[in-house]
């Protein structure tokens, strides 16, 4: 004989016992009391099984060494400390016809379906297949001994039968009360139930201290007994049907049959899960909670472990007697059976953060990496100020592989781009590039990037790292909407990009084999071999210094990076992370879409009307801009300077000497400029007249024209 540990005491069980049967075999109630159905319909046998509370012991086979603890008396079980997560297997299965419940009605339904030539899968909790829920699809979630099954079915038949009605009377939470089927099951397992009294609706009260000692009948008779078997009829076991009103299921057999409600309960516990009594129901009814849903919500009947399995017929009988009409049962909610978060989480994958082809290089260089725009990116390599100076004074490498990259081509490509972007496209010459913003239909800034013309009918587009994930969708959606002939090729993940930036950037390219005369000038681009790697070299500037973005196939990224790091060594090259980059671009007054802009930022709010050509006949957002241009708009992004230290980004901007809660905006970008020796900021003033001097972090800040650094842009053209 094997043993399980029940509340610290080993007890013996027979082969085939559930934990509940093992308990009653040893003269114990598996929980602390209440009618046992031993069919998974109620919550009266729940206990902590191997560390998991609220487990129905009647549905759990006894295994050698299982550790069962009863829930504490009068209190909820403790979830305990962090448990080692055990992997739960997930299977996806398909079946033409699934019959839930393999009793008489289920077997008949299965036979009928097979006669039609269907393949049929039968599920029954008694075989270890507990149906947790029926969802859209239809998908049936089944908890099995080996894991969670997601079962995709064409037809579902519910043949779940009927649940036996529990007695509601004084003493109905004692140990020793069984439904007829539960008693039969216990006896079939060889359990000695002692002196048994079988009763029906004439049961008035059950007496006893912990266990049953006697019952009292309507005629006053008192019968001494150890076990009460209450035969009170049954109610449809239709939880799954009520759970999925929009999923087509057939309900057959007793689950679909009309069942008479029991008599209205007079006294005792109606809802064993919540220990709700008839007195409680009377209490809420008399206070005006006078329909089924209000009684349920006010008394909290029917929302416990069994989800109304025990109380529903009594609750309906209660409402029927007082209101004069029989209410429909309330909607059932998943999960119908045991399902832990660990089980539910199985098989689910959280979105991954992407790594650039240079990830290992960054790690080797001691980078602190962080998540930004869906990617792991170097935040800094230990000394962001030194990285800053490398850009301003020498040469530096930045990994910009995360930028959105796209090739668009075809006979209608110019037309498509003219409609997509608010600036002119047709006049961009082959080999030239232009900075662009793109707008929503409401005229608000969605993203920014570059348009580079490769040929008359072919362009390269770039987008921000954060915008890259939706850029392809955005372009394709519009192109298809317009019915234009444009071929779209997203290369965000197939191509890497390295930004070579700083006054010595040209020199580094020369050392990498790019002759001076080949080097593209500002806002030009060209295909060139750099250190032997074929690159699309784009000359732009985000940092304010001469910059060459080297776009290349990712299988050459590491080779190119290492070559540039090696060749640049005599020039003092070092890589820079996002922290330095954001400071560099802040000095140039370049906005970061999503950081300096808001959901509804129009170009004029960030002083970028120059990037919008309203003389164009049509582009996304044009109608909105034409309309809103006539409206007053006080919200503006400004540049500010102030003495260091730089205030935290997010600091509020107040009028000088204003009240503490007088907020006119907040700081969106803030940087202690090593070059200027003071802080440079961007931030909002959302109220006119706009002030020239404001208060930030308790100090004065002065509005300043942007760019703060090299307003003529001479450095980028060096």
């Amino acid at each position, binding site marked *: 004989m094997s043993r399980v540990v029940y509340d610290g005491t080993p007890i013996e069980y027979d082969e085939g016992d559930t934990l509940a049967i093992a308990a009653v075999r040893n003269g114990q109630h598996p929980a602390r009391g209440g009618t046992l159905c031993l069919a998974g319909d109620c919550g009266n046998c729940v206990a902590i099984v191997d560390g998991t509370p609220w487990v129905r012991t009647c549905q759990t086979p006894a295994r050698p060494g299982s550790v069962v603890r009863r829930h504490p008396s009068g209190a909820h079980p403790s*979830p305990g400390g962090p448990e080692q997560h055990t992997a739960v297997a997930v299977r996806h299965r398909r079946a033409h016809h699934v019959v839930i419940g393999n009793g008489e009605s289920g077997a008949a339904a299965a036979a009928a379906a097979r006669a039609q030539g269907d393949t049929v899968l039968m599920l029954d909790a008694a075989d270890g297949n507990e149906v947790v829920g029926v969802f859209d699809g239809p998908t049936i979630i089944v908890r099995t001994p080996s894991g969670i099954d997601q079962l995709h079915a064409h037809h579902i038949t519910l043949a779940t039968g009927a649940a036996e009605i529990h007695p509601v009377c004084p003493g109905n939470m004692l140990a020793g009360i069984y439904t007829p089927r539960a008693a039969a099951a216990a006896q079939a397992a060889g359990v000695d139930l002692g002196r048994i009294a079988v009763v029906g609706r004439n049961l008035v009260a059950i007496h006893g201290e912990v266990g049953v000692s006697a019952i009292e009948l309507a005629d006053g008779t008192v019968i001494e007994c150890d076990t009460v078997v209450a035969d009170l009829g049954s109610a449809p076991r239709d939880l799954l049907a009520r759970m999925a009103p929009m999923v087509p299921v057939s309900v057959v057999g007793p689950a679909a049959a009309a069942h008479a409600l029991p008599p209205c309960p007079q006294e005792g516990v109606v809802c064993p899960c919540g220990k709700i009594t008839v007195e409680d129901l009377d209490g809420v009814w008399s206070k005006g909670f006078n329909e089924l849903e209000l009684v349920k919500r*006010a008394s909290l009947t029917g929302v416990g472990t069994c989800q109304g399995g025990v109380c529903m017929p009594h609750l309906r009988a209660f409402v029927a007697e007082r209101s004069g009409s029989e209410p429909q049962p309330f909607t059932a909610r998943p999960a119908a059976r045991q399902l832990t*978060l660990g089980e539910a989480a199985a098989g689910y994958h959280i979105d991954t953060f992407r790594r650039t082809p240079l990830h290992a290089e960054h790690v080797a260089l001691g980078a602190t990496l962080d998540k930004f725009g869906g990617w792991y990116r170097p935040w800094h390599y230990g000394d962001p100020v030194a990285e800053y100076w490398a850009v301003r004074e020498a040469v530096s490498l930045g990994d910009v592989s995360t930028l959105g990259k796209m090739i668009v081509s075809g006979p209608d490509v110019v037309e498509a781009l003219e409609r997509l972007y608010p600036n002119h496209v047709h006049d961009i010459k082959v080999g030239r590039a232009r900075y662009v913003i793109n707008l929503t239909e*409401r005229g608000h800034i969605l993203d920014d990037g570059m348009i580079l013309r490769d040929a008359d009918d072919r362009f390269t587009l770039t987008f921000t790292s954060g915008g890259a994930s939706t850029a392809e969708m955005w372009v394709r959606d519009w192109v298809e909407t317009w019915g234009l002939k444009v071929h779209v090729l997203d290369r965000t993940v197939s191509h890497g990009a390295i930004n070579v930036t700083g006054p010595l950037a040209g020199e580094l390219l020369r050392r990498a084999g790019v002759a001076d005369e080949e080097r593209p000038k500002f806002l030009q681009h060209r295909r060139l071999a750099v250190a032997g790697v074929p690159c699309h070299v784009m000359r732009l500037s985000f940092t304010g210094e001469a910059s060459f973005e080297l776009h290349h196939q990712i299988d050459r990224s590491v080779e190119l990076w290492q070559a540039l790091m090696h060749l640049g060594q005599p020039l003092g090259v070092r890589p820079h992370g996002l922290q330095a980059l954001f400071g560099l671009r802040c000095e140039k007054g370049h906005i970061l879409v999503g950081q300096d802009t808001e959901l509804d930022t129009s170009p004029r709010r960030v002083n970028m009307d120059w990037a919008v050509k309203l003389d164009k006949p049509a582009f996304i957002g044009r109608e909105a801009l034409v309309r809103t241009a006539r409206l007053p708009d006080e919200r503006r992004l400004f540049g500010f300077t102030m003495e260091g230290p730089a205030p935290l980004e997010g600091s509020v901007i107040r009028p000088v000497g204003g009240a503490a809660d007088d907020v006119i905006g907040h700081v969106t970008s803030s940087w202690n400029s090593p070059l200027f020796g003071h802080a440079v900021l961007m931030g909002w003033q959302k109220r006119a007249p706009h002030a020239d001097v404001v208060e930030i972090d308790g100090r004065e800040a002065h509005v300043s024209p942007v760019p703060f650094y090299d307003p003529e842009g001479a450095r980028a053209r060096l």
Partner: protein
Amino acid sequence: MNEFVETLLDLPWQTCEPKPAYDVVIIGGGGHGLSTAYYLAARHGITNVCVLDANYIGSGNSGRNTTIIRSNYGIPESVRFYQHSLELYQGLEAETGSWIMHSTKGQIWLAHSVTAARTERTRALMNQACGAHTDYILPDEIKARCPQIDLSGGGRYPVHGASYHHEGATARHDRVVWTYAQGALRNGVHIFQHTPVIGLVKDGDRVTGVHTPNGTISAGIVLSAVGGHVSTVAGWAGVRLPIRTHALQAFVTNAYAQEFAPIVSSNDLVFYVSQTPRGQMLIGAEYDRQASYRTATSYAYLQACSAKATIMFPFLSKLRILRSWAGVCDVSTDFSPIIGHTGVDGFMLSTGWGTWGFKAIPAAGEQLAALIATGTPSPLIAPFGLDRFANELAMADPSSAGTR
């Protein structure tokens, strides 16, 4: 009688049929409709008011939310409005004598990246400036306030810090609904359940009443306080709304010993968890991407939400999911509510409550009642008028919605 039942106040229903006309007819007997009715009667003496609900009171989103009360928003107008609401909640039990099971728990809003930390710092700074009590806290303090957390985030979501909203709270959703219903009924307001509004009565451009299956009710003002189908109701009045409706799902576990003190949310993982006064762990996440009016729940949601929650709180993996549900959220394009006049005489709105409607019930009702009584929106709700969209004055606050 258990404590929960014993402490309920009566719902003193009117015994008459609907009158042919009222000064104000409110469509929707949820928290918003009922609180407006209560404040109209209790603060302004406007008692010739009726509230109509298609089902039973509180059957919509008021009974399908995660009961969180907070004011840690990202723009001054919202912080001020929700802080006022939070304070009204704090005083609601004293004002009405009704136990709403209000519990101040504090809300930890986790950041797992430098950028998320920046967002939470920004939130704290903006909150402090506008009267909400929020600080940026570091991992040690997070661990002290919530020992169950895995600060390493399973190795993938390490905790950088969090904003901590000291006054974040919860209250029992149904009891808030009933508290306002009780208060309204006691003051003579009529509330009719199972009385759907199937159309609006119009006189020229003006809305003058509502159609129900039992007949027409005239009204000086019709207020739509419906959740989920506001676009339909507004459409009857000829008002187009910048609203999309999405289902938001949530679930509770069985009850466990009270060991989890705060409300915890995650900026990057987008989920939130708290423990109810009854011991259940209440867990929610972002709304469904697909716009829909359905209130069915999906297994994919249970999977995603369970996966996220157990990353940060491994102890949850052994807890049992008890029941899941969904509400339908009217989400405005700027993630802020739409309150007040609509441009159609006689027709007013309270909508756009998205995933944040429960916490706004007291303030929205109080301020709408004042608007109806005086004709002028107070500074607290003036920024949230429908005309802001036409006037390019959106109240954009996407990072405060607890969804994305």
